[in-house]
């Protein structure tokens, strides 16, 4: 009887406290509060400590999940954080923005009968605890090996490569085009989902490990990859420049005042702090804001609009909710906050007033037809079903294309017909010797953790390519010498 009770308890996850929806829609503070110590221990004790943990297989950076959870269960929170950091330099970020439900948690055995262990929640807890208690310790760093690696882009892929290689004794310089490092973590993901202070701290941690960051350098313009090798003496280059070219719909009225790409809207708010009172970078705070798209970026945009004072914030998506690429948690949070969802409708025109400011979004209703190449049912327009959504700001969040700056200035680098850099998924190697690539510049727009996974793979092959050939030669020489 006692056993059964234990089991039923074990099947239910400890929930995370969060700001009530009616309150948080008026501020930019983070939505979930995170576990306290006793909640974390209770949740950690649910873990079955599987002998062959499937969760680890689901993690692109192979975090030793059962081990760090065990340390939390034992109350050794700092050790838990250090355990995670053995393979993941950015745990406070991953704990917040990774889609654990598709990666580690989906594999959890407990999930078969109940709720999987809150791995993301626990990761976040350990990282936050370590930071808040000022007990961050640097990992062991190997002595300098004399090799120099350039990392282009300081987003999740680049930061991961930098963290991994600096531990191995490489000299690592990260080049960032903007005036602040972090890439999409600072310009794209809003404060209420990922506080910038946390990103700053995780980047500072990398800098303490020895990573150098040079801001305001646009590789391809300020300096080329060839020059990094020939003039600045780098031995390898990792390209993690992201998917930084917003797609537009190509409909009439798209260049009217009040139409933003999600990149621009979020950059104005997040990076340039337009949401703060008295900020110097302006943003049009719409009364009614329509966001086109169904991904996480669309949710971030619509929720930002609400916090900037919109009376109505509307998601316009051409398929149904089942096809939305956004995380379920994000859709759920958006709905709680009162975001309206106009599903199965597609914009056909943006209408303006006499000063060319946006006045409405003209849409057509869609219905789902046969599955398309993505396996999702293709939306088909319903003839004669056009209607207007009154709005004064339109945000286009339908995706990004890879930024062509680096491929166009590096002739040896092979790119696909979509403009992505062709790189081996396993090791990040490109068509150019000693040049590696990973993250959105290779895959097209994807997630933070996939970019980090690619970064980790690339770091391993960079270390191998730069260090091992020599090691082998040295060994060979050593082997020979006794005989002589």
């Amino acid at each position, binding site marked *: 009887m006692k056993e059964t009770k234990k089991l039923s308890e074990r099947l239910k996850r400890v929930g995370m406290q969060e700001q009530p929806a009616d309150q948080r829609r008026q501020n930019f503070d983070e939505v979930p509060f995170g576990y306290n110590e006793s909640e974390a221990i209770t949740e950690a004790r649910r873990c079955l400590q599987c002998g062959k943990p499937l969760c680890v297989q689901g993690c692109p950076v192979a975090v030793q999940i059962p081990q760090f959870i065990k340390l939390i269960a034992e109350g050794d929170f700092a050790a838990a954080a250090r355990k995670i950091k053995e393979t993941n330099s950015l745990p406070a970020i991953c704990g917040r923005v990774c889609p654990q439900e598709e990666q580690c948690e989906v594999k959890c055995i407990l999930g078969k009968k109940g709720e999987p262990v809150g791995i993301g929640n626990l990761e976040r807890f350990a990282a936050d605890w370590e930071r808040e208690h000022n007990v961050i310790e640097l990992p062991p760093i190997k002595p300098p090996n004399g090799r120099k690696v350039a990392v282009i882009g300081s987003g999740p892929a680049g930061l991961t490569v930098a963290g991994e290689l600096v531990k191995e004794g490489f000299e690592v310089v990260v080049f960032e*085009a*903007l*005036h602040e490092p972090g890439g999409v973590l600072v*310009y794209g993901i809003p404060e209420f989902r990922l506080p910038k202070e946390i990103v700053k701290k995780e980047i500072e941690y990398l800098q303490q490990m020895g990573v150098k960051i040079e*801001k*305001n*350098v*646009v590789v391809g*313009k*300020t*300096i080329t990859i060839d020059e990094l090798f020939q003039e600045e003496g780098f031995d390898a280059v990792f390209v993690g420049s992201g998917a*930084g*070219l*917003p797609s*537009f719909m*190509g409909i009439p009225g*798209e*260049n009217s*005042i*009040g139409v*933003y*790409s999600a*990149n*621009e809207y979020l*950059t*104005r708010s997040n990076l*340039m*702090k337009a949401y703060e009172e*008295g900020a*110097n*970078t*302006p943003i*049009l705070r719409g009364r009614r804001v329509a966001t086109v798209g169904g991904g996480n970026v669309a949710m971030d945009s619509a929720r930002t609009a609400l916090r900037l004072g919109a009376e109505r914030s509307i998601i316009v998506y051409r398929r149904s909710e089942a096809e939305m690429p956004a995380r379920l948690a994000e859709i759920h949070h958006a709905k709680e906050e009162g975001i309206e969802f106009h599903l199965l409708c597609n914009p056909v025109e943006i209408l303006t007033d006499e*000063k*060319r400011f946006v006045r409405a979004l003209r849409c057509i209703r869609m219905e789902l037809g046969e599955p398309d190449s993505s396996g999702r049912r293709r939306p088909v327009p319903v003839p004669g079903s056009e209607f207007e959504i009154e709005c004064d700001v339109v945000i286009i969040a339908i995706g990004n294309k890879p*930024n*062509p*700056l680096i491929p166009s200035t590096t002739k040896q680098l092979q790119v696909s017909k979509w403009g992505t850099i062709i790189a081996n998924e396993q090791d990040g190697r490109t068509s150019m010797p000693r040049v590696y690539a990973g993250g959105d510049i290779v895959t097209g727009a994807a997630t933070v953790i996939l970019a980090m996974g690619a970064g980790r793979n690339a770091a391993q092959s960079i270390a191998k390519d730069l260090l091992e050939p020599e090691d082998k030669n040295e060994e060979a020489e050593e082997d020979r010498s006794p005989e002589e």
Partner: protein
Amino acid sequence: MSRILRKEQLSEQVWRYRLEAPRIARKRQAGQFVIVRPIEGQERLPLTIANADAQQGWIEIIFQVIGHGTMHLAELNEGDEIADLVGPLGQPTHVERFGRCLCIGGGVGVAPLFPIVCALSAAGNDVTVVVGARTKDLLILQQEMAVNSRRVIVATDDGSKGFHGFVSGVVQDLFAKGEKFDLAVVIGPAVMMKAVSALTVSAGVQTLASLNPIMIDGTGMCGGCRVTVHGQTKFGCVDGPEFDAAGIDWDEMINRLTAYRPLERQAIDRHTCRIERQTSKVL
């Protein structure tokens, strides 16, 4: 960080800064720009590179105080460091031996025109420069232009120097006299570029206009700087800043520049109020 090596006032609201920027100085070509963030927490300002010395490792920017960003920039002094400087951005001007070139600059647009005039002259072109301003005290770079071109024609709106009227009047006169050109380059306020390029394009002269749309990152990421050229959407920062003037949707371009005007005005008022408050405290 980039140090201000020299600060010079060219006219009442126009300044020339020489900035320490070895990498940019080495890389930049005529027509390219930089983005400047004067101090932490400020806006990013796109400004054309007016001059550079690769050997000595500096670039020069010329700007007019128009918004709070340029106001902050003007408050810095020689020896101060600019928080952020990035570049060179945009496509360089395509320079070859065209023949007779007509380069027209209005107001502070004369500054970005200068490196293009130099590059065209150096490539063996016969360059006529037309510079205009509201009044003679606002004319800039006349000497430098004269040294680097065959002739310079000056126009002022109030007639205080040279031709009495707009630069478009000068251009009209040149065509009326039967002068022929193989290339025109026009840089200045959008309304002026629209008017002047209408003349040069209808005279059958291939015309380049250098646009100054609102932008944030300058690398293609935000898409705020989009302009319609020959019916296609282009990004001013990565596809431009120069475009074939014959294809530019000028009305859209001019309209997009007004997006934040009401908000800008509020910001300037706030800043002025702050300065006044501080001054009154000191007094």
